């Protein structure tokens, strides 16, 4: 390489570094300008609740899990969560097509209430009561001849063996087929029922409000307004029931398969309103009203994963992640300086640039694509410190190899780069494959790790190509480096071209 050509390369190198640093400054400016100066922290770092709901197809239930029904469920759950007014709550579907899950994240301590609220199917049905009994199971089955109309012997046997005193029988879930008679427990576990097919449905409710009755003893309750169809059906049902003997003059209000109340109907109700009572607390009544107002979920869900992190643990994990990051960075700095001397400065400044770029990306991506930093994400970034530093090592060792081949330092810096470049790119491609595979196959926290790993791999490439290499080229201009000063990292001693004095003594 001619001296002229090298001088050219060096001024180009300086220009590349300047452009890179200016872009970093510009992006920092953008971050400040759009006001994203704080990191968006995941729930595992700030505390909060996240719930993953899996759609469930129940035996005998009609309807199937479709992409549309999941979208609909997301919209309903989002309304329910928003009705609680917790800032920064998120409801999102993850996965593809019908095989999706719904993930609800709520920061802070209100999470527990939301978990209970959002997963409810909220299938409201009004069913006339056919048989009412005490909650415990009985072995006595009723004589088939004396069964009321609509009650089959199977249903009667099912009713007899049902024990509503056991909490596991009062989980609620789907309310069963709306056109068939069912057995059902009372919510409080004090009674059980055989119920006729549903006559009025939750989708016929237009408005639900929680109210308190200051005089009467019923406390908090929920009032419902029906639409036209609901009004006429409710009217028809109530007028028919008034003339029946007990317990068949009762109408059960069934929510998600549990009987909330089963009041006796004294007169036909044609006003299009109804009340649900049941010893509610204020929060219970409000939640129930919200759930009814926004409608029933089109699907039943299983709680796939529930994670509740207290703010204390969140803060602790954040602190732990930061300590690990700073410690890891410091150790690599020390090692670089001790082992590579002058070149160590290149390595340290490159790592600093990479760190700044990583933090900046976290800020900006938080603003632009809603990227949240999780503990796994921090771990990915820390692991990436090693991967980034490796790129420098590959390059430096390659340059040393070239020097051992007898090249001048100035040209070794260039020829070494051509060979190291290939290795660095291959290595980063493997990292990138790992990141992409992890991102698409993994669920939950793992994705955060994959994302930061992929992000930092790209940053690594940018830093090595546009900062580290140009910086080495530029430094090779100075005699400290190109004449192989003993502290430069390129000295004959560090490359092993001269045996050090101690080794001579040993020999």
């Amino acid at each position: 390489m001619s001296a002229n050509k090298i001088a050219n390369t060096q001024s180009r190198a300086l220009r590349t570094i300047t452009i890179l640093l200016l872009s970093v400054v510009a992006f920092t400016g953008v971050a400040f300008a759009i006001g994203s100066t704080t990191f968006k922290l995941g729930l595992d770092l700030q505390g909060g609740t996240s719930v993953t709901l899996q759609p469930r197809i129940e035996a005998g239930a009609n309807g199937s899990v479709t992409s549309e029904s999941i979208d609909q469920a997301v919209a309903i759950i989002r309304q329910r969560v928003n009705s609680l007014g917790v800032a920064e709550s998120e409801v999102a579907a993850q996965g593809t097509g019908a095989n999706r899950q719904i993930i609800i994240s709520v920061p802070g301590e209100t999470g527990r209430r939301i978990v209970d609220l959002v997963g409810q199917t909220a299938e409201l049905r009004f069913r006339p009561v056919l048989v009412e009994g005490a909650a415990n199971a009985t072995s006595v089955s009723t004589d088939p001849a004396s069964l009321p109309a609509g009650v089959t012997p199977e249903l009667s046997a099912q009713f007899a063996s049902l024990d509503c005193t056991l909490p596991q029988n009062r989980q609620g879930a789907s309310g069963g087929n709306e056109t068939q008679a069912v057995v059902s427990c009372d919510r409080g576990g004090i009674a059980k029922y055989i119920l006729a097919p549903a006559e009025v449905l939750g989708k016929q409710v237009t408005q639900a409000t929680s109210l308190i009755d200051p005089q009467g003893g019923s406390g908090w309750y929920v009032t419902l307004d029906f639409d036209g169809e609901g009004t006429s059906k409710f009217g028809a049902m109530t007028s028919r029931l008034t003339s029946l003997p007990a317990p068949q003059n009762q109408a059960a209000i069934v929510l998600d398969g549990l009987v909330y109340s089963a009041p006796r109907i004294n007169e036909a109700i044609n006003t299009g309103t109804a009340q649900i009572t049941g010893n509610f607390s204020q929060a219970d009544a409000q939640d129930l009203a919200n759930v009814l107002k926004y409608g029933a979920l089109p699907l039943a869900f299983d709680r796939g994963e529930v994670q509740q992190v207290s703010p204390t643990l969140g803060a602790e994990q954040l602190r732990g992640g930061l300590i690990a990051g700073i410690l890891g960075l410091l150790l690599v700095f020390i090692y670089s300086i001790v082992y590579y001397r002058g070149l160590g400065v290149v390595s340290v400044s490159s790592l600093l640039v990479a760190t700044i770029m990583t933090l900046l990306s976290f800020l900006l991506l938080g603003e632009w694509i809603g990227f949240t930093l999780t503990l796994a994400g921090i771990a990915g970034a820390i692991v990436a410190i090693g991967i980034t530093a490796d790129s420098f090592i590959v390059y430096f060792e390659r340059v040393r190899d070239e020097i051992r081949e007898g090249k001048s330092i100035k040209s070794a810096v260039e020829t070494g780069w051509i060979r190291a470049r290939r290795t660095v790119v291959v290595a980063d491609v493997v990292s990138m494959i790992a990141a992409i595979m992890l991102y698409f196959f993994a669920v939950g926290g793992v994705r955060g790790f994959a994302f930061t790993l992929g992000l930092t791999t790209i940053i690594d490439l940018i830093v090595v190509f546009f900062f580290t290499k140009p910086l080495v080229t530029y430094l090779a201009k100075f005699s400290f480096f190109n004449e192989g000063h003993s502290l430069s990292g390129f000295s004959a001693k560090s490359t092993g071209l001269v045996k050090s004095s101690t080794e001579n003594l040993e020999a």
Partner: protein
Amino acid sequence: MAKLSGLGGRLYRGETSVDFIGRRKIWYSFSLLLIVLSAVTIFTQGLHLGIEFKGGSSFTVNSTSASIQGAEEAVDTAGIQSQTIIQKIGNDKVRVQTDALSASQQAAVENALATKFGVSIDSIDSQIIGPSWGEEITRKAIQGLVGFLLVVMIYLAMALEGKMAIAAIIAVIHDVFITVGIYALVGFEVTPATVIGFLTILGYSLYDTVVVFDKVRENTKGIAASGRSTYSKAANLAVNQTIVRSFNTSLVALLPVGSILFVGAGLLGAGTLKDLSLALFIGLATGTYSSLCIATPILAGLREREPAMQALAKRVGNRADKPVAATTSSTNSTVERGPRNQPKRDRRR
């Protein structure tokens, strides 16, 4: 450190040399022993899977009065009949693990624990994984692992010579097997964080292998024509030439991982950071071992079977019998040794 750099120079010129390929039988038997041991423990003992994979509930209470006995009583009060594991973590934490609980059972346990230890219910950290969700996570983890291996194999087959790809893949499978074996043997808990740590390190170990193979390819280019050295010897020189770099990169990768392990295990007690860094640690160790002692010897073994390489080995062997022509020996090299005396290699610009 200067000594290490000096060593780098000597290794590079082949003055100091560790015979990785010649001792292949030792490495192979050692690995075979580990693999048999792994297979036996995996089948007899199995892996200790975290609740994320098998489903279950976990409650952690932060309280200075936290005790195992108190937690047991609280679980009894809540009327939970499932199998329960209670662990004390550090001085002021107690963790209760049970089967997957329903919402009302969860609330019962949380209330009982909060009352028992006099803490607010919001300060209890809980995690519940439904059994079907656990299956989903397991399925995804296996898919991720298999998918990763497949894509990497395709990539390696494209980026490397065919036999190099085979050797690299054998080394990767070797790593997977031994790491899983270590987890089964020691009984470390396997969580999703373990799996990510593991996949990361697989990528890392492959990268190590790729660097060594790059050098092998460079050293063995045109080797059949020149007849300077056998394939195995040239490959061994490549391993030795890259060993300082391997050592450096592994150490530098280990420093941040070590700091995560220190913080994860030391300060936080348990969780994502600890699981992740433990897997990285174990994987890094087996990965470095396999690129030096398994991948390259297998590659040399495969190549030495080719008729051209066997003929070469014969020619080199004949020449070595005549003492004058021992060109591969470079033990007498000195500072004066200029570029001309270096082993000839393909000079690219």
